[in-house]
Every structure is written in structure tokens, then in C-alpha cells.
């Protein structure tokens, strides 16, 4: 406990978490996620009973939860992008980072602390978004649901979404560390995100060795993990273990990308002029 209290990384992480919780931008995105969860649940209240044909418990996961993918991914990754930009670029813009740099600590500790604090915040946000999505839909749905299967699949989806958000966070922090001007960093981050979503579809046209390039596009990699060629996480006819075995390599690559981006952040931030 004493070590944890003295560690600058934990102190910075703790501070970052508190600062992020007070950001109006974060609350705006959270409100949008909450509103969309209610729309999603309200729509499913009417639609799910129509989709149940044989009284199976599949429709809840393969229908309702599958349909939550788009908006949870979209706004959780936007949240990660907002957090990444806020923690480096905005703090530089308002001069807070200069104060932090004057403290007796390594720069890598500063980056590690910020990354850890922001990741912890993202973990809470992603978990809450998914819990809200599941709970609101469960409340309005009276049909059969396999709760254990739902819990396992949504936990797996939550972990993959969290990893993708952490990667987005790292990229946003890198953009913030590289571009000195806040407006430029914001525009670059937003453009990266938008064109990343668009370019993702073009990777399907690549065949052979060149198709492995899709591993370098975070969004394509993430979509590949969630919807792996017909055995996606929401496909209840395939056991979760089978899904995990087929995507474990991609998940490993996603984690590797997070580590590389984090190291790149440390390198770029070490060159930051105080």
C-alpha cells in the first residue's frame, strides 16, 4: 500500500481519473451513450418478440446484443479519442502539463500514469455502457435468455471493445504528443478516426499476403475479432471457446499494437520541450 501511495505512476493515474470524471466532454459522450441505450432497448421491446420464432434464447444475443455493436463501438471509441486528446493536447494548451513536467519524476512515469488512469476510466465507461445496454434491454424483454451465455459473451465483447478503446486512446495521445497545436491535433485525430472507419471496408478487397495489412488497421482488426468470418462473438450457435481459439492471434496482435503505441508515446513525449 505504501509503495502504491509513493509510486508517481499511481499518483498521476489517480489524478488523471479524477480530472477525466470532471470533463464536460466526457459527460456529453456518456449522455449520448445513455440515450442510445434507451432507444436501443425501446426498439427491442417491440422487435424482439417478433423475432422469436421457436422460443429459443438466441434472439437476445444474436439480435439485440449484435445490434448494439455499432453505437457502443462508435461512441466508446469517440470517448477514448476525446480522453486521449484531453489528457495530452488540451493539458499542454492550458499549461497544466508544464506544471507536471516541473515535478521530480520521469517523463515515462507521467505518460504511464496518464495512460493507466485514462485506461481505468475507459474500463469503467465501457463496462457501464455495456451493462446499461444489457440491463435496459433485459428489463423490456420477457422472452427466454441464457444468462450465463449472455454474461460470457458480453464480457468477451467488453474486453475486446476495451482493448480497442485503449488502442484508440494511445493513438490519440500520440497525436496529441506529436502535434503541438490543439486544433491541429483535434482535426488530425478526428480525421484519422473517420477515414479509419471508411478504409476498413477496402481491406476486404485485398487478397493473399497483402490482406494481412488489415492487422495494421485497428478498426479492421477489431471488427475481425468481433465478427470473425461467420463465427462472431454474437453467433450463439458457435461456442465461445471456438471463437476465442480462432481470434486469439488477432487479440494478441491488438495487445501488441497497444504496447507499441504506448512505447511510441514515451519516445515522442521524451522529446517534448518543457
Amino acid at each position, binding site marked *: 500500500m505504501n509503495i502504491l501511495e509513493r509510486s508517481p505512476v499511481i499518483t498521476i493515474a489517480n489524478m488523471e481519473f479524477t480530472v477525466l470524471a470532471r470533463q*464536460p*466532454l466526457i459527460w*456529453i*459522450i456518456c449522455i*449520448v451513450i445513455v440515450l*442510445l441505450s434507451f*432507444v*436501443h432497448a*425501446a*426498439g*427491442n*421491446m*417491440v*422487435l424482439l418478440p*417478433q423475432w422469436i420464432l421457436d422460443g429459443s434464447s438466441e434472439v437476445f444475443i444474436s439480435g439485440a446484443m449484435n*445490434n448494439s455493436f*455499432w*453505437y457502443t463501438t*462508435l*461512441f466508446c471509441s*469517440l470517448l477514448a479519442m*476525446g480522453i486521449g*486528446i*484531453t489528457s495530452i*493536447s*488540451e493539458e499542454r*494548451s492550458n499549461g497544466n502539463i508544464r506544471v507536471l513536467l516541473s515535478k521530480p519524476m520521469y517523463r515515462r512515469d507521467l505518460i504511464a500514469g496518464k495512460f493507466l488512469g485514462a485506461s481505468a476510466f475507459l474500463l469503467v465507461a465501457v463496462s457501464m455502457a455495456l451493462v446499461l445496454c444489457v440491463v435496459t434491454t433485459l428489463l423490456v424483454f420477457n422472452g427466454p435468455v441464457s444468462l450465463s451465455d449472455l454474461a460470457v459473451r458480453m464480457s468477451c465483447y467488453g474486453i475486446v471493445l476495451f482493448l480497442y478503446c485503449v488502442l484508440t486512446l494511445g493513438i490519440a495521445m500520440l497525436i496529441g504528443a506529436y502535434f503541438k*497545436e*490543439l*486544433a491541429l491535433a*483535434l*482535426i488530425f485525430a*478526428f*480525421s484519422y478516426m*473517420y477515414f479509419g472507419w471508411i478504409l476498413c471496408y477496402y481491406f476486404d478487397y485485398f487478397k493473399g499476403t497483402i490482406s494481412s495489412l488489415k492487422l495494421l488497421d485497428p478498426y479492421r482488426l477489431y471488427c475481425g475479432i468481433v465478427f470473425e468470418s461467420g463465427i462472431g462473438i454474437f453467433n450463439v450457435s458457435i461456442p465461445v471457446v471456438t471463437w476465442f481459439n480462432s481470434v486469439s492471434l488477432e487479440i494478441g496482435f491488438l495487445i501488441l499494437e497497444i504496447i507499441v503505441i504506448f512505447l511510441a508515446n514515451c519516445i515522442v513525449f521524451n522529446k517534448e520541450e518543457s
Partner: protein
Amino acid sequence: MQGGLWYFLTMFGSIIALIIGYLSITGERQANALNTLITKPVYRDSVINGKLLGDVGFLSFFFLVMSLIYTSGMILVVGGAIGPILESYILSIPVSILLSLFCVMIFYSFALLTTILIKRQTVSLFTCAIVWLLLTEVIPTTDFGWYIGALFGESVNAVWDMVSMICPTYILLPVFRSNGGDLIHTLFSFNGSVLLLIVYFIVILFVNYITFLRSDIA
């Protein structure tokens, strides 16, 4: 092909317009140029008029170049297959550019308004981004159509019609998709949609003027 051009211009153009609208105030506010500008003996509406004209000029040029690139690309890929409709397509390009310009200027004006109202750069750009995402990527999706349609007992098509009235990039999409090559003639049968697009633009521009004239922009 005209539908493709409209989609190409409005989807990419709306992002560019959003960024230009955001930068036109933020960039100057950050460099303190806006403070200098409003101390000069010019009316405040001249400032906004000037910015508007300059950015419309830039976007028109950008759209012209993008249309040329898109058309050349299509001719190269499809080749002689578009021969029969080539003439009417080329004649419709100026109309497509003009309508796309109206459409993306709604996003431009919204970004301008947000930047005037919200001083914090991150919040203002992300607010623009959220609204843009909702209007282009969330509300006009089939999933959203299903949910809203299911709630109100309407069909997905009815919801799509409603949605196209809210989202600027989708207002004229049916016009471009349903015309058989004669865009101008089809536009007359959908003149309500064109009018709606123009009304959106005028309303948001008017709000911009009021806000810019009355608020502390420094």
C-alpha cells in the same frame, strides 16, 4: 452515378466543411487575430460575411476538383458503359455541386455556431463530431429505423422518409437515386426537399448571425 457523386461530395464535404467552420473561428481566436479584427472599423456581420464567402469559394473549388476526380475515375473504371448517360451526367454536375454546397454549408454553419458558443476547443469540436456522427452514421441506419419504426408502429420505409428530413446529407439522396439521368427534371418533382435543405441552411445561418453579433467572441 449522380447518386454516387452526391454521396461522395456530401460525405467527405461535410467533414471538410465541419473542419473549416471550426477552424475559421478557433484558429483566429487562438492566434488572437479575432481580437484585432473586431477592433477594426468593420461591422461584425462583415466579419462573418467575409468568412462565409471565402469558405464557400474554397468549398466550391474543392467540390469542382473532387467532381472531376470522381468523374475521371468512373470513366476510367466503367469505360464505355456510361456513354449513353454521359452527357446528362456532365450537365448535372453544376447542379450537384450547388446542392451539395447547400448541404455541407449546414454543417459548416453548425460548426461555426458551436465554436462561437463553446469557447473550449475540445468540447466544441467533439460536439460537432457527435452531431455529425448522429446525423450521418447513427440516425440514418437501418437498425435505428427499425427501432423507431417498431416504437411508433411505422414501417422502416416510413421512418427512412422521416429520417431523410432530419439529416442534411440524406434529404436529397432519394432525388439522386430515383432520377433516370435527368436530374433537373427530377428535382422539380422533389422541390420540397430542395426547399427544406435551403430552409435549414438559412435558419442556421440566421442563428449564426444573431449569435456572432450578440456574443463575446474574444
